[in-house]
């Protein structure tokens, strides 16, 4: 009785080990090399998934850049993103393509909650699921999840969504860059 149980356990264990080894080998043998460049580019994009670049999200845009597409189509990323992309791809930075929008300070959507009728249209429009609510109940925006992509403003039938510019807090505040001409040699250089 005990030996048969033992045999059963050992046989199953051996089978599992053999199959596990086989799968491990196959995972190594049939490994798919994703394009590492796409991952790198994707990590530089702001992940707003707003579609202002004309692609259905940040990853498709990253794929298009990896295939040699223009790098200046991302308004939420703005100058910073273009510079980072130019560094990564070793190309000249270009000014933002105005056709796709202009760079704005970081904004978040805010729902005027007493005016919300609970139609869920903004929830469906939100690419990052940052809006909370249910049908016929008030909706609200999770501020930390909102990427400020504007996509929820258009569908709202009562226009109760505002885009509010975020005041810089202790984490987002940066030094204002010095105006040129502070250093004496720069002024001389400009004159030459």
């Amino acid at each position: 009785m005990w030996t048969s149980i033992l045999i059963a356990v050992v046989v199953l264990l051996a089978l599992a080990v053999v199959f596990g080894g086989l799968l491990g080998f196959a995972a190594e043998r049939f490994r798919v090399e994703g394009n590492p460049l796409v991952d790198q580019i994707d990590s530089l994009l702001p992940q707003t998934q707003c579609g202002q670049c004309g692609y259905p999200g940040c990853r498709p845009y990253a794929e298009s850049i990896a295939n040699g597409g223009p790098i200046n189509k991302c308004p939420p990323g703005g100058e910073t993103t273009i510079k980072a992309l130019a560094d990564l791809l070793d190309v000249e930075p270009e000014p933002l393509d105005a056709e796709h929008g202009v760079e704005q300070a970081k904004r978040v959507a805010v729902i005027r909650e007493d005016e919300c009728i609970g139609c869920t249209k903004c929830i469906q429009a939100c690419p990052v699921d940052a809006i909370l609510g249910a049908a016929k109940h008030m909706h609200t925006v999770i501020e930390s999840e909102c990427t400020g992509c504007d996509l929820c403003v258009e569908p709202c039938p009562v226009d109760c969504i505002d885009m509010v510019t975020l005041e810089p807090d202790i984490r987002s505040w940066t030094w204002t860059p010095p105006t040129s001409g502070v250093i004496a040699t720069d002024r001389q250089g400009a004159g030459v």
Partner: protein
Amino acid sequence: MTEYLLILVSTILVNNFVLVQFLGLCPFMGVSGKLETAMGMSLATTFVLTLASVCSYLAYTYLLEPLDLAFLRTITFILVIAVVVQFTEMVVRKTSPLLYRVLGIFLPLITTNCAVLGVALLNINKNNNFVESVLYGFGAAAGFSLVLVLFAAMRERIAVADVPVAFRGAAIGMVTAGLMSLAFLGFTGLVSV
């Protein structure tokens, strides 16, 4: 030779796994929305079913039976099927990214396709030998593919037909599947196995 032919005819038409034995209904309803996906799913299932049928036959005959462990067959077959599906997924992902994207979630779901386990267990019940197991698995898969593709073609037409509101979607799909099943019952008596 005739008996092999009989096995094929029996599994494809007379004892069709989906419409007569009612195994593997979930992918039958789930993947039949578009002809293209249905064909991809048929291909993947055919490959997995045949391979799983062979592998589980081998595992049973050369491992479980000599050791007197026939009671472990269900769990062993599930293990075998899971491994075969995983393996297929890796190969498909490597060789055909397009097919991989078309099949999506349905490829791993073959693991829980009851037709696959059903074939493995029925092979043992019917005392099939090696060649018969291969044919039985392949025939079951071919039958599955046949009705899946036929059903998908019908559903594409139903999608644009003027169906009463209460019957739209899954309901008319179920009704259609029932009618197909009735039609396939007509094959009973074609051959007797």
